[in-house]
């Protein structure tokens, strides 16, 4: 008696983001399917197994999950969803045996983007110390060094431009990556800089490139290369001048405090080392805007300004783009006189008691003196 021609069974994979992931053997003949009904869980589990990778090693565990016989076939449901970007191999121990290597579908949702680069200006001092990349959503930190490149005007990658930090220097939310230009190549008179020279040279143009393969925390990749172009200009070898900080006191209880800075300052540090204090010494909560290529710092208080004295506080460790602090140069002659000890600077402004008598200090006119004395 001739056997009826067997329908070809096949392995199918469901791995869309947000949906239940499963590997299913469909198309097996009815008599095979009815045989599954009598098998216990371990036996079913041996019929259909999923491994990570293309070729499972001899002592490699199978991916944890459960196999059950459904009306149409044999279904494996992994205990945890398949991971996008990882390869899996499903093995069906049937007659004939089947094998399928697959990758999980990339998750849906918004594609990650580079939302900003700091310093944001198109002309950077050749001794720029840090670059920041801000992303639209939490990113995957691993292998970031493979995806972020500094290129010269001929498109050649600059080697050893940044301090090598495994998986990169990320903030806690993993939306902000800090790239530190190798200080050994910026400081004059020490070996790496003498040998390799500074990575950036005045008069040349560069591109910071993030390649399309960089992924976010859920496995979505940028999809497109991102490039930020800039030109290197003469090195900045002077500290920012405190007297160049100009404060425009708010014109009304709900108006922001606008501070013009003496030069473009380090965007990351501007979030931490410049703040507003109330008379009780507590920091005033509010929202910061940093714009005009990091030359303007605008502070909108959470609640309207209450009558009283305030101080804009500036920590002397605040740096310009080349790492020069208010109180100390990044790269100075060691033979020269030691810098003065660090001290915090405070610039006072305030509102007098009573409705709408504003402001009492600052303004766009005369500069308030720096360094101001601390609040009385």
């Amino acid at each position, binding site marked *: 008696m001739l056997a009826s021609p067997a329908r070809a069974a096949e392995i199918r994979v469901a791995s869309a983001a947000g949906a239940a992931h499963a590997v299913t053997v469909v198309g097996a003949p009815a008599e095979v399917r009815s045989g599954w009904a009598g098998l216990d869980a371990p036996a079913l589990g041996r019929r259909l197994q999923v491994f990570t990778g293309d070729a499972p090693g001899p*002592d*490699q*565990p*199978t991916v*944890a999950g459960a196999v059950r016989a459904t009306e149409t076939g044999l279904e494996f449901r992994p205990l*945890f969803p398949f*991971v996008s970007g*990882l390869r899996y191999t499903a093995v069906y121990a049937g007659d004939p045996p089947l094998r399928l290597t697959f990758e999980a579908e990339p998750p849906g949702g918004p594609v990650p983007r580079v939302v900003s680069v700091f310093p944001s200006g198109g002309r950077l001092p050749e001794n720029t110390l840090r670059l920041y990349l801000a992303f639209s959503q939490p990113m995957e930190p691993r292998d970031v060094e493979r995806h972020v490149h500094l290129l010269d005007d001929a498109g050649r990658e600059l080697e050893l431009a940044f301090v090598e930090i495994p998986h990169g220097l990320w903030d806690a939310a993993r939306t902000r990556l800090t790239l530190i230009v190798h200080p050994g190549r910026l400081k004059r008179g020490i070996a790496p800089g003498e040998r390799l020279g500074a990575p950036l040279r005045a008069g040349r143009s560069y591109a910071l490139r993030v390649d399309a393969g960089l992924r976010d925390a859920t496995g979505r990749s940028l999809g497109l290369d991102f490039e930020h172009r800039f030109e290197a200009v003469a090195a900045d070898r002077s500290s920012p001048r405190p007297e160049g900080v100009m404060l425009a006191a708010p014109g009304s209880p709900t108006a922001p405090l606008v501070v013009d800075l003496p030069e473009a300052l380090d965007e990351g540090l501007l979030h931490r080392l410049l703040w507003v204090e109330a008379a009780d010494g507590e920091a005033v909560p509010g929202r910061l805007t940093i714009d005009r290529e990091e030359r303007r710092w605008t502070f909108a208080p959470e609640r309207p300004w209450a009558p009283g004295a305030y101080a804009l506080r500036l920590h002397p460790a605040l740096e310009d783009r080349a790492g020069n602090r208010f109180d100390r140069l990044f790269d100075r002659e060691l033979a020269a006189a030691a810098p003065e000890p660090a001290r915090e600077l405070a610039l006072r402004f305030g509102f007098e008691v009573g409705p709408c008598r504003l402001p009492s200090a600052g303004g766009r006119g005369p500069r308030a003196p720096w360094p101001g004395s601390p609040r009385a």
Partner: protein
Amino acid sequence: MKKVLLLALATGLAGAAQAEKPGFKTGRPEILSMSALGFAPEGVLLVGDGKSGAVFALDLGDTTPRELKDPKPVTDVEAKLAALLGATPADVLVHDMATNPISKNVYLAVSRGRAGMSSQWLLPNDVADASVLVRIDGDARFSVVDLASVPFARAALPNPIDPGKKHAWKEGLTQRVDTIVHLSHANGVVWVSGLSNEEFAATLWRVPYPFAAGVTATTLENYHGAHGKYETDAPIRAFVQYPIAGRSEILAAYLCTPLVTFDAGALQDKKHVRGRTVAEFGSGNYPVDMIVYKNEGREKILIANSNLPLMIVDPKDIEAFKGEITSEVPGYTAGVHYEVRSSGSVQQLDNYGDAHVVALQRLMSGRLDLTPYSVRRF
């Protein structure tokens, strides 16, 4: 016929496993984070759940005795965990390990959170909640322990620390990550170290086992010789209960690494107790596990460390040490004598039968192996 028999056997086994111990019920224990693991008698696994502020006792029916003869290492544990969880090895993170004293099966609390370990001071519980319990059996087979329906009991810890309290020096974290740091069963008590909501946050809870009413909480302080001050908010990272000069003591190790003894009898509910700092084993180090082992008839204490080698402390030396460290240690170490053994980067340590201990250890290749060591080595 055979099939029917098999089914009957399977049912019988399931029935046996479901014979509940007093105080246990069968169902899914709602464990939010497997912060610390340990074992109670009869193969009952203890799981400290820092996020819930509770301890679970799970009766996994893992009671078949196994004797260890020349146990072999399990190589590349992270690769195998990754294969099991369908993830990449760089993702998987082991939060704690406990070995079943009866079956010698090894249990790991695991998450897929390793990408968050961005500084050397972060601990697994700082960056992720372990949600997967993995068993490694005598044939080095890895399996996920299915907790959908197991006999379990739960004991709530009174007053676990408020999740809103910021961590003093780990940016972006709350102190809740240290609600439960370590737990250990001894003589009908599960001791749990961690942080409570009291003014002095460092706490040792005493949970009667089998679980019953009467959980007590004692707040602790001790002198940190490396920091030069008394501290009340650093949790005990590893401890054992051990008799010293006939009195039951808790021997506790802290970050940076003081060894402190507490009179167990003085650990009364709602009391604040100052421990005696008897040694300073070196700053810049987390003690990660502490066990008692016996070699040539003598019991000793073995401490695994994040940044220092394995340390051996002889309880007789603690007994003989009459002093107390109450001022800043000028050098690096002070107090009770200890010895070291090679075995760097031991991340988890537990007893493994009487003749061995087992270490989850990072090798120079970067591989994480589960390595048994004969107690004769120590």
